[in-house]
């Protein structure tokens, strides 16, 4: 009975985080894009940049709203469904979440009001400042959330005193080994995901021969950012993998379906695709590339890579989810790089011109259908990260089964079902309303902001 309750709690956390994750990706990326656009507007005076800020911020506020709506249940879910975990680790995880709430979320939420609604109420400088605060708040939020999650992956600054988790060094715990790469990787993922979201929307318009100049401009900015971000993310992925191998060898083995440690002075093969069989502690079938695992994992041909069988069965994560998710994520990472390179090539071949761009339908369709790429890659990455950490909540210290609340399975199953229904509905509504926003198109005619300073009566 206890076992079943844990599974429901896990499923609920998975559903709520997978849904929530979609929105901060866009909040972080779009908020940065809007700073870029507003700076360009203020520096060049080109009205088109102002229209870009206004247009993309409509999508921004929509995603921000759903992000907040889905984020609050996460914050409180540690208490409702993981009360034992909360009691045991609150003094570090709760701390870091409090930093997130007070340092970043509060900042973002307050200045959002000025940024979205205050165009005619504050000065130029104040408005840009508000924009920057929103972007800063969004990115800083990611930092603190990743700090909390990273501590669960590589719990530093900790000692077990009488079965209780005691934090001996708060700075070490916060700036634990996993944090730098984890934060950077998700932050760049936000930028890359937004890039393809925006790029895909540009493609949508160009395919319909609407506002071609407007969206080509945005698209080119995406390509420039993409030249940096797409290869960078692959590099960061590699660095991420190295961290996992060093600090979470069981997860590393599971995500590669690598069962047997290769003896010294031999190489480990990389399993490209396989059917893992956890009971048999082997793969039913596999396609392998010799030497590659040693090379990828240790950057040397004869590097030793620990196999999953080195760990007791009770300490092993499930293999299939992290294994497949990892492959999908990596594949998508390379697909996104390819699309950026293709766009660069089109640009070089002068095919991104207002007159001729809509003709290249295959190219734009690829970008249009690539909209989900970053989202899917990120969710897969999280599946690797979190499922690969099982059976631990805090790696090596607290098991998932030990952290769950004494809430009945029936109660938890009810809330889980409600979350699923409501979130599916919300996702559908988001797509519906985004379509409406796109159909309506950018507003190119309403008056420019009047930028008034706050006077004593306020108001309009």
């Amino acid at each position, binding site marked *: 009975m206890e076992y079943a309750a844990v599974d429901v709690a896990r499923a609920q956390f998975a559903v709520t985080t997978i849904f929530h994750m979609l929105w901060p990706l866009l909040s972080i990326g779009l908020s940065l894009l809007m700073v870029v656009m507003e700076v360009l507007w203020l520096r060049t005076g080109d009205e088109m940049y102002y229209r870009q800020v206004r247009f993309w911020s409509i999508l921004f506020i929509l995603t921000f709203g759903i992000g907040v*709506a889905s984020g*609050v249940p996460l914050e*409180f879910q540690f208490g409702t469904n993981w009360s034992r975990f909360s009691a045991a680790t609150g003094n570090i995880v709760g701390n870091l979440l409090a930093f997130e709430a007070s340092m970043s979320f509060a900042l973002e939420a*307050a200045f959002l009001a000025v940024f979205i609604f205050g165009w005619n109420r504050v000065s130029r400088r104040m408005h840009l400042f508000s924009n920057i605060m929103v972007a800063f708040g969004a990115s800083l939020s990611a930092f603190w959330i990743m700090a909390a999650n990273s501590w669960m992956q590589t719990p530093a600054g900790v000692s077990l005193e009488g079965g209780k988790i005691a934090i001996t060094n708060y700075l070490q715990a916060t700036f634990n080994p996993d944090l730098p790469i984890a934060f950077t990787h998700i932050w760049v993922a936000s930028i890359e995901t937004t890039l393809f979201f925006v790029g895909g929307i540009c493609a949508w318009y160009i395919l319909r021969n609407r506002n071609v100049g407007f969206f080509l401009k945005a698209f080119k900015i995406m390509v420039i950012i993409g030249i940096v971000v797409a290869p960078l993310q692959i590099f960061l992925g590699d660095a991420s993998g190295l961290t996992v191998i060093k600090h979470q060898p069981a997860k590393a083995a599971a995500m590669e379906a690598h069962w047997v440690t290769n003896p010294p002075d031999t190489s480990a093969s990389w399993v490209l695709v396989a059917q893992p069989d956890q009971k048999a502690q082997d793969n039913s079938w596999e396609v392998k590339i010799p030497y590659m695992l040693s090379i990828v994992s240790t950057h040397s041909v004869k590097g030793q890579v620990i196999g999953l069988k080195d760990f007791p069965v009770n300490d092993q994560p499930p293999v299939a989810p992290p294994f497949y998710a990892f492959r999908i994520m990596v594949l998508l990472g390379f697909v996104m790089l390819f699309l950026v390179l293709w766009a660069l090539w089109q640009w070089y071949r002068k095919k991104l011109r207002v007159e001729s761009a809509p003709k290249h339908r295959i190219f734009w369709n690829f970008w249009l259908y690539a909209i989900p790429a970053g989202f899917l890659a990120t969710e897969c990455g999280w599946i690797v990260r979190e499922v690969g950490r099982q059976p631990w909540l805090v790696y090596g210290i607290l098991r998932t089964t030990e952290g769950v609340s004494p809430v009945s399975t029936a109660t938890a199953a009810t809330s889980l079902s409600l979350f699923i229904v409501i979130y599916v509905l919300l996702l559908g509504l988001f797509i519906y309303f985004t379509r409406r926003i796109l159909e309506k198109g950018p507003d190119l005619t309403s008056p420019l902001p009047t930028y008034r300073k706050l006077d004593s009566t306020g108001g309009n």
Partner: protein
Amino acid sequence: MGAFLPLLWYFLLVVTMTLFITLDGADLGIGVLSLNAGESRRSTMLVAIGPLWYANETWLVVGGATLFGAFPLAYGVILSSLYIPAMMLLFGLVFRAVSIEFRGHSEHKRLWGIAFGIGCLLAIAGQGFIFGGLFSNLKIEGGSFVGGPWDWLNLGSVIIAMGVLAAYAMMGAAHLVRKTEGAVQIQNRRLLLGSASIALASFVAVIAMMLLAYTPLSLIWSRPPQVYFVPLFLLVVLFAFIMLLISSRDEKSDRAPYIWAIVVFLGIAAATIGGIFPYFIPFSLSIAQAASPQASLVFMLFGAGIILPIIIVYNMYVHGVFAGKVYGDEAEDQY
């Protein structure tokens, strides 16, 4: 130093939660009041909430995280034992947030307006029952909840929840009086009087029930400091209520009703918190028992504690940017 930090954090938590229920309580209250309004009045009401509800909701986020970090045992016990009301609050807030967003983009403004109102109602009900549930003598053993999923539902918590609903409606109406004019404002004044009276009546009923049914509470209240403190605050509440009655009928005072509503609200909150001190969860978990270790509280003070005044300052600035009366569909131009 031993007892100081938990008390300091308790105080900070109370401040945060009070800011939440005062600021966002008004927003939620307006949402509930809007259920009974026609479409154009509803639009005005939603504009009166304005773009500030995100900032106001952040106090809940800050408060919840503060509870988690400074009093993790209480955080876990309260939320897991009051699971159903907690879910009501969470789902209510989800509905509230998305409804106000989607309404701006949709042709079906009435539908989303009602969804917004229902979301607010659900969120208030959740808070009311969490609050009421805390006074339901929850079965806690060895730092864990050992009761059932419906323990929070009883006559006392129902009355408390109704009182909370009335109190939020009162805050909402007071906020509307401040932000509107003319005939709309007169209607809001009437709403203010009505909801304030219900709130006070519930409060009195609850106190009577508590004193009669709750021996531990009457024991605490008959000893210092509560024996001075609680009646004092009850007098403050009564005085503020009378002032609220007077100012809401005075056509010239726009701000005064809001101020008095806040005083009534804070007076009730102070009487309650002071009334159960030093317990966190009456009467099974004390503040000291629930607190994180000292080192954690110090660490949190640097990261979160010193930030709180800064948040208050920039929130005051943002409120200032949006001060003043609202007329109809002012905010619609954003979409």
